């Protein structure tokens, strides 16, 4: 696993992808920070966090698109899959490498609150919780990107489908709201509507993310993001493993 993690992380910075991800994230985040906080002299970074979440939808697909798809395309998966390592080591190594790039980005963004401090008092605890939420949501989004990358050998398809899924998740809260309000209020249909709405609500990431942006420390959304990340990594391993049996 360590070997694959190391190679993958290096590969991110041999290709432009690592720089594009970090650069784009920080550039856009800086613009939001400037408009939302510095220009208004606002110490609350809640809006900033939601805005960076939107940036994720664009940059995380770029980060994860080549992960498994490229290996299949260039047939280097033959090296990995015939080496004395487990399939789970391969997928987890790749996942962690992408997470490492995200970690670098988040660490750099941690500078922003210190800029705010130059101008006055900030609620450090709340801001740290916001960053934690941003990080965990990113980890979960990466696991989705990895899964999409295992499903195809075309990087563009991997990126576009990841973007589509993330976008859908981002609007899931309002989709679920729409479903539950437009369904009949009585009878069997109402029950079905409620069930559908609650299933959709489960994937409403913005609702979980809101806790963090408001600076509320709550174990449930932490567990939510981590367990979904675990689920998608697990599914990715299954997909790669399954391919042997085609």
């Amino acid at each position, binding site marked *: 696993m360590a070997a694959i993690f190391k190679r993958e992380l290096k590969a991110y910075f041999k290709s432009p992808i690592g720089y594009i991800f970090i650069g784009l994230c920080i550039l856009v985040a800086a613009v939001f920070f400037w408009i939302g906080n510095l220009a208004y002299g606002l110490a609350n970074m809640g809006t900033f966090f939601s805005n960076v979440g939107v940036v994720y939808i664009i940059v995380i697909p770029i980060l994860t698109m080549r992960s498994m798809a490229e290996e299949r395309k260039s*047939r280097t998966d033959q*090296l990995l899959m015939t080496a004395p390592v487990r399939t789970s080591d391969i997928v987890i190594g790749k996942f962690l490498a992408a997470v490492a790039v995200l970690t670098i980005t988040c660490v750099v963004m941690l500078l922003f609150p210190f800029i705010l401090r130059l101008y006055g008092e900030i609620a450090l605890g709340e801001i740290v919780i916001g960053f934690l939420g941003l990080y965990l949501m990113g980890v979960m989004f990466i696991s989705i990107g990895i899964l999409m990358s295992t499903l195809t050998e075309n990087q563009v398809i991997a990126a576009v489908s990841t973007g589509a899924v993330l976008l859908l998740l981002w609007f899931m809260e309002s989709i679920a709201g729409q479903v539950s309000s437009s369904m009949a209020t009585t009878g069997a249909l109402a029950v079905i509507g409620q069930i559908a709405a609650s299933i959709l609500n489960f994937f409403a990431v913005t609702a979980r993310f809101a806790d963090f942006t408001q600076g509320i420390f709550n174990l449930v959304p932490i567990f939510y993001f981590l367990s979904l990340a675990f689920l998608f990594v697990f599914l990715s391993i299954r997909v790669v493993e399954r391919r*042997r049996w085609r």
Partner: protein
Amino acid sequence: MIEIANLTKRYGDKVAVDNISFTVKKGEILGFLGPNGAGKSTTMNILTGYLSSTNGSVKIDGHDILDDPVSAKAHIGYLPEQPPLYLDMTVTEYLDFVCDLKKVDKAEKEGHIAEIVSVVKLKEVKDRLISNLSKGYRQRVGLAQAMIGNPEVLVLDEPTVGLDPKQIIEIRDLIKKLGKAHTIILSSHIMQEVSAVCERVIIINKGKLVASDTPDNLSKAMSEENKFQIRVKGEERAILDALQGVSGIKYMKSLGRKEPGTIDFLLEAAPDVDIRVALFETLAKHNLPLLFSKSLELSLEDIFLKLTRDEGAFEFDSFVANEADFDVIGQDAVSEAQQEPVSVEKEEDE
């Protein structure tokens, strides 16, 4: 070392590998021969654990590739048809990564890479990006990759494809050298390569195993038994009369004049009867010089073509059907032999 039992692989309705069983002994170099699409690469992908079989088992040094994949794979070095190279790495970086992947001891890594780099002659390109290397060098990097970690088994899928003749000879020599310390399975559709390098040959066609033996035995077993082409100096009539006196000849046929003053004959003897001594003595008694006698053994190439031809397109025992083949072979022999007699004739003229 390698035990393969009842291996079958289906892709939907298509059967790519059909109930193949064979074993490879330690230190053996096995040639894996078959036309394109016969299932060679699929079989190799299964026995290295890249694909799973639909049925059957693969054991590497006693470890089942499906039940105990990590230990089984630790014994194998695999060079797939297309070398699995990361083009964004230099040769040294790449080999270093493969060392990590195969869990080569950190302390030994540097020495191990240096040794392999010198064996496969990559020294002059070791700091270059793989994307800038030629096909021949890439193939060698692929081979180096397979050798890392000193696996006991090397599985090489068409290792010389796309190389120039000089590189082919180098790679073949290298494989022969490696064969002294490794068990090697080598696939190819080039006969000379297999007969030059391998101790045993397995031929598969349409997913089925059609033959398995040493190259020599294969060509003996597959040859028309006891058939000779001979060339005798003299008149056709006289020679035929003399040949009547040789016991054990089942069939004879004049092939006509291929060289001035001589006649070629095709002889078939009864199985297990060596007629060559009797033939020589009889012809000598009649003062008819025997210029050459050549057993019509098939080359590996002929065997391969025979085995992989569509069923029903040829009849083995029918003599008539095979005559065309002999003529071709006879012609070859003639063109080889022709040069000397011509100069002899000139001398006679003077």
